[in-house]
């Protein structure tokens, strides 16, 4: 059975996204990597094509705006999860940094879509309209991690103190995607330390609020076309109506964790996209490569490594599709999502690493596509839950214990 289940919509999206990645993303990937710059021009044209940064908010549409239309009533299986998967693999095949620049606002849309009130959704949409003072399309940021708090989000130090009908935010956020440029931030903060995890809530903070201070941009190993920055909150007053869910009861951190679970297959498939890119590049090179008059591909030393790569890529892709399929069918997929993400991250590391070794000296040069993919791949074992955290989740599902 084909992974796309003979679904013409998924197949269409794959074709469309592949063509886009090939003709539009690939040609500028090296430049944005070298310059460590966001692909603003591309982001503008993408948003005009309907690859909207806020489409996730529209539950009747997929991540790709109109492409997902046709989603029907709630009791039928959806295709949105798989649709995202199919699109994300192709975009990351083009460039994982650019793909995060294009889709990074989705990290902030997800909690708004899941936990936000209608008013908050409207507020978010409004903030994302038009262009900013540099003429750039608007982007959003999801600010959870802090300098001392990455894997263990229960230790959040950013506080939200109630003051009349406002909350006053204080604290620092670390490694925030779109952290410097965002028009709107979803910020997690502790509203009441005595409540512990239940006291953690998300806040919608628009850029114009006093006390929101975008910080320094990081110089990174990979995915350099995506901006990562610190964000500071210094007595930043946010109206209580901008607390996600507002007066509705909240599961605090529990909600946040669910949100992270739901994005894992999409993160995993991007690693698959990188691995596939490197594999295809290598295969192409090896096909035309002769060593002392014999084809390189005739050497088992080479050929079996190719086989290994293809096995792992295929296995990773299946896991990601399976996890997304389960979500589309409203089946509990926490374990599958973690397995998909962790396995795909490993695969991307292995494939890009071996590809560099096989290509030899040429791949040492800065900006060589495989060298770049090697650098890009590493983040997939770190963000959205490290490889260790995924294994902790998988093992806990099996044993019921949090192993240390």
């Amino acid at each position, binding site marked *: 059975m084909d992974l796309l289940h003979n679904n013409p919509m998924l197949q269409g999206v794959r074709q469309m996204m592949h063509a886009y990645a090939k003709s539009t993303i690939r040609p500028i990937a090296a430049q944005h990597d070298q310059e460590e710059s966001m692909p603003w021009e591309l982001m503008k044209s993408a948003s005009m094509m309907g690859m909207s940064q806020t489409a996730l908010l529209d539950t009747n549409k997929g991540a790709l705006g109109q492409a997902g239309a046709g989603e029907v009533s709630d009791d039928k299986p959806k295709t949105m999860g798989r649709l995202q998967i199919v699109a994300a693999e192709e975009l990351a095949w083009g460039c994982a940094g650019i793909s995060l620049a294009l889709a990074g606002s989705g990290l902030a849309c997800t909690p708004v879509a899941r936990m936000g009130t209608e008013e908050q959704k409207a507020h978010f949409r409004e903030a994302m309209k038009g262009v900013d003072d540099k003429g750039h399309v608007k982007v959003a940021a999801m600010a959870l991690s802090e300098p001392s708090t990455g894997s263990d989000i229960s230790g959040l130090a950013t506080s939200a103190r109630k003051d009349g009908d406002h909350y006053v935010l204080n604290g620092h956020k670390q490694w925030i995607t779109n952290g410097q440029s965002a028009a709107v931030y979803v910020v997690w903060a502790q509203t009441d330390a005595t409540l512990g995890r239940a006291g953690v809530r998300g806040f919608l903070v628009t850029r114009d609020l006093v006390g929101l201070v975008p910080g320094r941009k990081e110089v990174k*190993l990979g995915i350099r076309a995506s901006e990562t920055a610190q964000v500071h909150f210094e007595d930043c007053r946010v109206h209580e109506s901008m607390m996600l869910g507002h007066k509705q009861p909240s599961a605090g951190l529990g909600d946040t964790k669910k949100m992270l679970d739901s994005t894992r297959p999409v993160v995993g498939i991007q690693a698959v996209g990188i691995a596939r890119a490197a594999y295809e590049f290598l295969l192409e090179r090896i096909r035309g490569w002769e060593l002392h008059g014999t084809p390189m591909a005739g*050497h088992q030393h080479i050929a079996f490594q190719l086989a290994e790569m293809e096995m792992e890529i295929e296995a990773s892709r299946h896991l990601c599709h399976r996890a997304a399929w389960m979500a589309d069918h409203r089946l509990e997929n926490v374990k599958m999502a973690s397995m998909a993400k962790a396995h795909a991250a490993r695969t991307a590391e292995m494939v890009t690493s071996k590809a560099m070794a096989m290509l030899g*000296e040429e791949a040492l040069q800065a900006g060589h596509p495989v060298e770049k993919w090697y650098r890009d791949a590493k983040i997939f074992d770190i963000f959205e839950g490290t490889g260790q955290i995924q294994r902790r989740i998988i093992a806990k599902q099996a044993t019921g214990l949090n192993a240390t």
Partner: protein
Amino acid sequence: MNFAMTEEQALLTATLRRFTEKELRTWAPEADRQAQAPEQLFSKGGDLGLFVDAVPEDQGGLLDGRFEHLSRALRGLELGRGCAALASLLECNVEPALAIARWGSPALQSELFALMAEGALIATAHDSEGRLRIEASERVQVSGSLSAIPAGAKASHLLLLTDELVALVPASAARIEAVETSGWRAGAWASWSFDDHSLPAEHILARGPAAREAREQILSWANISLAARALGVATAAIEYATAYAQERHQFGQAIADFESIIRLRDKNETAIRAARLLVLEAASLADRDDPTAVDHASRARDLAGDIVTRATIDAVQIYGGYGFVNDYPVEKLMRDARAFEVLHGNAAFQRVLMRRQGDN
């Protein structure tokens, strides 16, 4: 058998360790960002005698008696801990000096040793993929291009190793273009291209079967040093990661105390220690002219190349998000790791091919 260092070796190690910790590690981040070695590297390296320690004493160098690959391996372990790129510049003169002393004519020796005594660098390149065309009729002519040679942008000459030829080519004979690399960024990489350059006879060290033998020797010296430096980088990665893991707390405890992190470090440490023994043995065999030194050296580089890749990836992993950003030392190490495996050709593949041909 005695695994202890001699007094001299212990002193050497201690001196270089200080140099690594005080100087190399201080220079490394900026050298990486600027893709340029600091000037002090050359004065300090000169003070330490690193550029001429394989040049005979009576020719302006420091070598009194036999060059010791074992000491060089010990030094590589330390320099690699400091910075792979800077270490590659400090080490680049050894193969050329030894090759010139062994196969060069007296005229070539006095010409090049004099240059080296004045501070010249000589790079080494192996045409492992057969990119060059060598024509040998009346004169030997070289054409074609080699893409990425460390120290190539600063070198007065290139020690060129091919299937048919071992020769020294002056920079004036080539079109040299600086190459930007992802790792070893301060390593002064360059591509060298030749348009039918005729080599003067005195610049040719060996031809035909003799060249293949000389190449094998030279590569074995390089393999030992590369392996040692690779393990230096791996050691640094795990040292940094260990220190960081002890400081970093998540879930109410130091991450160093999670068993998966303990095991991650432990596996790397075991691998580094085992590979260190193999490198030192290869070096000791080379010092005794044992014919198996070549094979040991190749295996040592193969293993060390794998280990440094693994160790640096794992170090970034242990640093988490901080590992991915340039303010912390380990993302550089992950980039620096990759040259060791492929420089002068992939050692693992070379051995596979040799065995297939029944050479071994």
